[in-house]
């Protein structure tokens, strides 16, 4: 079956190539005409699509001004020292990058993000998957209600949620410790201890994102033909076996998607940590984005912040590529 798939893929990918190759000899003999034709056809195509282009133009204009320009400007900026005053940019070569490599606070923030990721993602992926499978069962009543309730936290503003979690987790007056007290458990320093603070952030993420991932899993589940499960049941598989051997393998691409998006999201954490913990205590929940923000807008080291954001960007891209490569290999 593997070889069959492989053959199918290669034949698919080769066909368009062959089609492209065919007209080439003709073009070789008549290069100038072909170029001319192309230009005309491009201009013609643009003109034909003028209304469509006009309608999409606002997005691309804004994208250019607010995304492409800052991205390019940041590259230039990362080789300068700048406090934000026009004309006071000072070229410093690779100095910003050199400092970044030995910037303990920045690397600590990368570690913090990784730890927060490990603390919430495995559990969240598993739980959202289980919830999705449960809510996909026909015998369950009020499905819409359960789905909505579980998804609801995701719609809450992170600022409001952050403040609420903070109130709940306060060690002396918070609801969490009061509830634990009833059960006879001594109070937990949720926001006053390095590890508990990371767990608190992880809890907030878990609360906010489980419903979102569940919805994605649900929609993926609904694409699995029921015949597969029925066939498996005919062969004597129980529900747990079906979950592990049919559902999970078929959902693999979606799981990878959720995983990748979560990696990027956790490293980019800002609102949640700023409000819940302020990056503390002792810097334990400070994230790369918070470090970049502080360096730029608090310490007025725009050049250094730009360098940090590029280092951060490269690491996240690398992490994503490694994941994709790793998981693709698993496929073939």
């Amino acid at each position: 079956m593997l070889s069959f798939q492989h053959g199918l893929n290669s034949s698919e990918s080769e066909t368009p190539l062959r089609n492209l190759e065919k007209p080439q000899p003709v073009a070789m003999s008549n290069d100038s005409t072909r170029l001319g034709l192309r230009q005309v056809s491009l201009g013609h195509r643009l003109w034909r699509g003028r209304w469509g282009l006009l309608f999409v133009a606002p997005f691309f204009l804004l994208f250019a001004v607010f995304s492409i320009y800052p991205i390019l400007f940041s590259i230039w900026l990362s080789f300068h020292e700048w406090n934000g005053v026009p004309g006071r940019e000072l070229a410093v070569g690779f100095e910003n990058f050199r400092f970044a490599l030995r910037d303990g606070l920045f690397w600590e923030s990368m570690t913090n993000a990784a730890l927060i990721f490990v603390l919430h993602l495995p559990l969240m992926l598993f739980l959202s998957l289980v919830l999705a499978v449960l809510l996909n069962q026909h015998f369950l009543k009020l499905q819409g209600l359960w789905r909505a309730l579980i998804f609801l936290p995701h719609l809450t503003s992170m600022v409001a949620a952050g403040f609420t979690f903070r109130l709940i987790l306060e060690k002396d007056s918070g609801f969490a410790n009061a509830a634990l007290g009833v059960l006879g458990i001594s109070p937990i320093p949720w926001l006053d201890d390095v590890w508990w603070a990371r767990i608190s952030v992880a809890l907030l993420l878990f609360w906010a994102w489980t419903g979102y991932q569940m919805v994605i899993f649900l929609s993926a589940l609904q694409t699995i033909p029921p015949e597969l499960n029925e066939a498996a049941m005919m062969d004597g598989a129980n529900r747990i076996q079906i979950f592990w051997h049919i559902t999970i393998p078929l959902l693999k691409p979606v799981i990878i998607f959720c995983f990748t998006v979560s990696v990027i999201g956790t490293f980019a954490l800002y609102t949640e940590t700023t409000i819940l913990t302020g990056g503390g205590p002792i810097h334990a929940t400070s994230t790369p984005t918070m470090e970049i923000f502080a360096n730029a807008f608090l310490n007025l080291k725009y050049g250094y912040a730009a360098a940090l954001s590029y280092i951060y960007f490269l690491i996240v891209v690398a992490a994503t590529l490694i994941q994709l490569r790793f998981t693709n290999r698993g496929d073939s």
Partner: protein
Amino acid sequence: MKPIHKLAAVALPIGLAAIIGVATQAQSGVKGEITIWAWGDPIKALKTVDDSFSKAFPNVTLKYVQKSPNDVNQGLKLAISAGSGAPDVLLIADSDLAQFVSLGGLTDVTTQTKPYLKRMNAYKWNAATLKGRVYSMPWDSGPVAMYYRRDVFQKAGVDINSIKTWDDYLKAAQIIKSKTGAKMLPLSKARNDSRFFETLLWQQGIGYTNKDGAVILDKDARAKVALDLLVKLFKDDLTADFESWTDPWYKTIAEGEIATLPMASWMGGFLKSWIAPKTVGQWGIVPLPTFSGSRARTSNDGGSHLAIPELSKNKEAAWAYIEYHLGRNESQLTMYKATDIFPSLESTYKDPMFNEPDAFFAGQKSRQIFAEAIKTVPNATVYTADYPEINGLMTLELQKMATGKQSAADALKNAANAIRERTRRK
């Protein structure tokens, strides 16, 4: 002004402008509209003077834009980078001021402020001055005293007047703790913000750096003395471990679970108006305890200035506004009465208002205590141009120390080295 800073960051909604303006016939050459950026309480204070300002300058219209301290700060930084979008007058907290002065975004008011150099608290000019030029006008100061709960001291049988030094303070703290269960002061360990440590530095006449800009945290014995007091307070569990400016912190203060608050003059206004309005008559104020060898029984925390951005198009009217509101006794006193924003203008301290008894402090002449205190506030510079970064680095090491991860000496050494590395100071 720092507390308001935090508050406004907590209070989400940001209201927008109220426009006040009276224009009658022309009487003076100063005219036009000026925009003022400030936050809640100070706007309330400034407006109490506007009627009389409008009579003196009928051709000037005022437009207030209320922003959180953070938004005023970021807004000016953006305006400086963009080259437009700045107001004509803005309120800047002392702790942020030097950064703006160093950016060059504020108008040089050296000549205009000359008549006030001797009339304002001398130390107020430190953060406003760069290379002999002055860039803002002082509004309020934050002289520090010790607020205490009369009921808690009475219950513990401790005479507040017996506390002269910080050693006395520690002894009293032990007695109060054993007799009443109350902690001596609220002071967070893992979420400490270094403000109390800075108050203790300033009391001894130093900041993080010396006059030449070199870091002195690990060299000046006074820094160690300051931090050692925190160590002792933490070690014997004499502090209530709540992060400043959070709900549990307000609660512990309002409910008399703490005996003292070594804080600035503005705290009195906060206690009265919203932190503990029901505790009328239960509070008292005494001068700050001293360290052996230092004389000042006070310090400074916070304070603010009004400044004119370089980008302002109506600097003449802007200065007229600032001078009228901050340079006259009547204006400063009106504002002080309305909001407890303590004037930096020294000629106001002779006013009879300072001798009025204050019911909230059980009839004590609270204003007199601060007017006395302000005379001996040491001329130190804690708020340098890189203060936000320095405060952050110190806070990190202080939190490590408070949670038992390192000694006081190591905290000072590590903070000093981190500051040197990141700010390129000596």
